[in-house]
């Protein structure tokens, strides 16, 4: 069963008076529990596709269905609510709230959701910080952390609401290869442990290798889709 269904989606941007097509008639289905990588060169449309799936942008044509909801039919408020409860975001440049501590950054989506006691929130946040290996920095501000540590905080923030889907836009682009590898391992572990669906974009072949499925985009079109797990299984046989 698909958690994300992209159907004949196109997205055009206006550059002055010129129409620049970012995506052209893209269709894609992502099943629950997948660890899907979107690969392609810069400007190929990876981020645009993630933005549309993440409901932070709207398509020029076509439909985007997330968790069974046609996003075109949702109000701005309902889209925000969908993002809050169903989707977790990991950004290339972390985008943590600089004036909050690590703990508070991770706790923030839970506060936006409401409904949990202080104790419940604290337990969930501390467990996640522990899981991403950053519990000892809970009181630190983001500016006091390294890039890899900040991205771990971002992962914890994305997962704290237990979303069905996590979107990561080039999560390792600002990290050295070793740290990047650790981050992907961490995401993979969360995918395995909780069954959370991950869709991440990258143009790093080492990162792509960790994915269960790989979608290649070129010039705004899906060039290929490979089931890497199946290939691994076949290779192992």
């Amino acid at each position, binding site marked *: 069963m698909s958690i994300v269904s992209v159907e004949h989606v196109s997205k055009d941007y206006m550059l002055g008076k010129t129409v620049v097509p970012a995506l052209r008639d893209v269709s894609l289905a992502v099943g629950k529990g997948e660890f899907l990588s979107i690969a392609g060169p810069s400007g190929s449309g990876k981020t645009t596709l993630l933005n549309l799936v*993440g409901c932070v942008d709207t398509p020029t044509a076509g439909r985007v269905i997330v968790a069974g909801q046609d996003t075109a039919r949702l109000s701005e408020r309902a889209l925000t609510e969908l993002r809050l409860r169903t989707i977790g975001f990991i950004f290339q440049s972390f985008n943590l709230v600089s004036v909050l501590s690590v703990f508070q950054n991770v706790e923030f989506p839970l506060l936006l959701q409401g409904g949990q006691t202080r104790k419940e929130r604290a337990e969930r946040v501390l467990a996640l910080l522990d899981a991403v290996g950053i519990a000892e920095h809970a009181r630190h501000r983001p500016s006091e952390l390294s890039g890899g540590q900040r991205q771990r905080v971002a992962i914890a923030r994305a997962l704290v609401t237990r979303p069905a889907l996590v979107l990561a836009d080039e999560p390792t682009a600002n990290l050295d290869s070793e740290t990047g590898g650790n981050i992907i391992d961490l995401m993979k572990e969360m995918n395995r442990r909780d069954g959370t669906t991950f869709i991440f974009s990258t143009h790093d072949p080492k990162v792509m290798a960790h994915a269960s499925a790989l979608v290649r985009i070129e010039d705004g079109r899906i060039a290929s889709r490979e089931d890497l797990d199946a290939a691994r299984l076949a290779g192992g046989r």
Partner: protein
Amino acid sequence: MIGVDLMIAGRNLARHTRRNLFLGGALAAVTALLVLLGALTAGMESAMMQSATTLMTGHVNVGGFFKITSGSAAPLVSQYPRVLETVRARVPEVDYVTVRGRGWAKAVSEHVSMDLVLAGVDVAHEPTFRKVLHVVEGDLEALSQPGTVLLFEGQAERLKVKVNDVLTLSAPTARGVNNTADVRVAAIARNVGLLSAFSAFIQADTLRQLYGLSPATTGAIHLYLRDPKDAPRVAARLRTALAEAGYRVMEPEAQPYWMKLMQTVPSEDWTGQKLDVTTADDEMGQFKQFILALRVVTGLLVVILMVVVVIGILNTLAIAIRERTREIGALRAIGMQRRKVLWLFVLETALLGLLGTGAGVAVALAVAGAVNAAGIALPEAVQVFLAQERLRFLLDPGAIATDALVLAAVAVLAAVFPARRAARLKPVTAMHHVG
């Protein structure tokens, strides 16, 4: 959640210390100025009303004019005991009543002369007289003796007289002839602002003699109420009651009696007795206008300064929003609603507004307290203008709180427009903002 919101707002303010100190400082300066100007005006108004309601007017007055011919007028209430009886019966709110003669006369000393507005008083029945007047020479009790006058320092200086010197008062009687009386200076009191420039007090019977009046005639009945705010209601009731009792009562007009005596009443076509019921505000109309004008000037000044502060807030928030656009985009992406973004920016400005106005109030209280404690004497010309001898700020907690809250509210309102702009940013646009 409010705790985290406040933390974000507070830390964002602290992140740009210099910028926010400048803006908060400007807000504090405007607040301090508004509070101090308000306190100075209130101090003047209080001093003026306190001295006026003792020296010139009650909270409510039943005065009147007697006209032998239509072109003449004298400030008289004839058969006042009967009027007083009606007044007492219809005003249960009254605290105490005084009866005073009214008139004006030319005071002539050996060296010089000047016009004086005279009040004929019976000091034994004037309970607040002593509280307002500070006798610097002579004895207030001596004013109970016939043929005595109390002058203020400025008048005594101008007439070049001291206690026990004799003045000649010359005044026109109701019958249109001039009468004179020699009066001894019984006491000289410290100036109490503008009123003491032209008001003087003589013993009540002496005033009657000067004007050739009977003992049943007086100038006005002053009513002092337990709550001065009741004055307009009591005045309206008295007009009706006196009219029902058969007196001719003048239409209410917010003018001091001496202006009516000089201008309005002589031009009216009637003769005989008419009663005139006024409030302290009516009698002090011109002073009130002066205070109002002062408040308008103060208000304009504050509005101009607030425009500067509002522009500062708009600029500061525009910069803050530009700096935090990516953060706003990320927060919107992770599920923050638009109204929450709006709230965070408004809260930040509200916090700055409250801190700024709070600091301004603290500065104003310190300055006002220090000035009041120092008892800074004002030059005489300024004394007349400000209606007080020493620079005095009257601090009214309610007015100060209102000033501070209004200024903080203006700051918050100024923040709404840029905050709305921040809230309306599309997450995708905000996240990819470069700047």
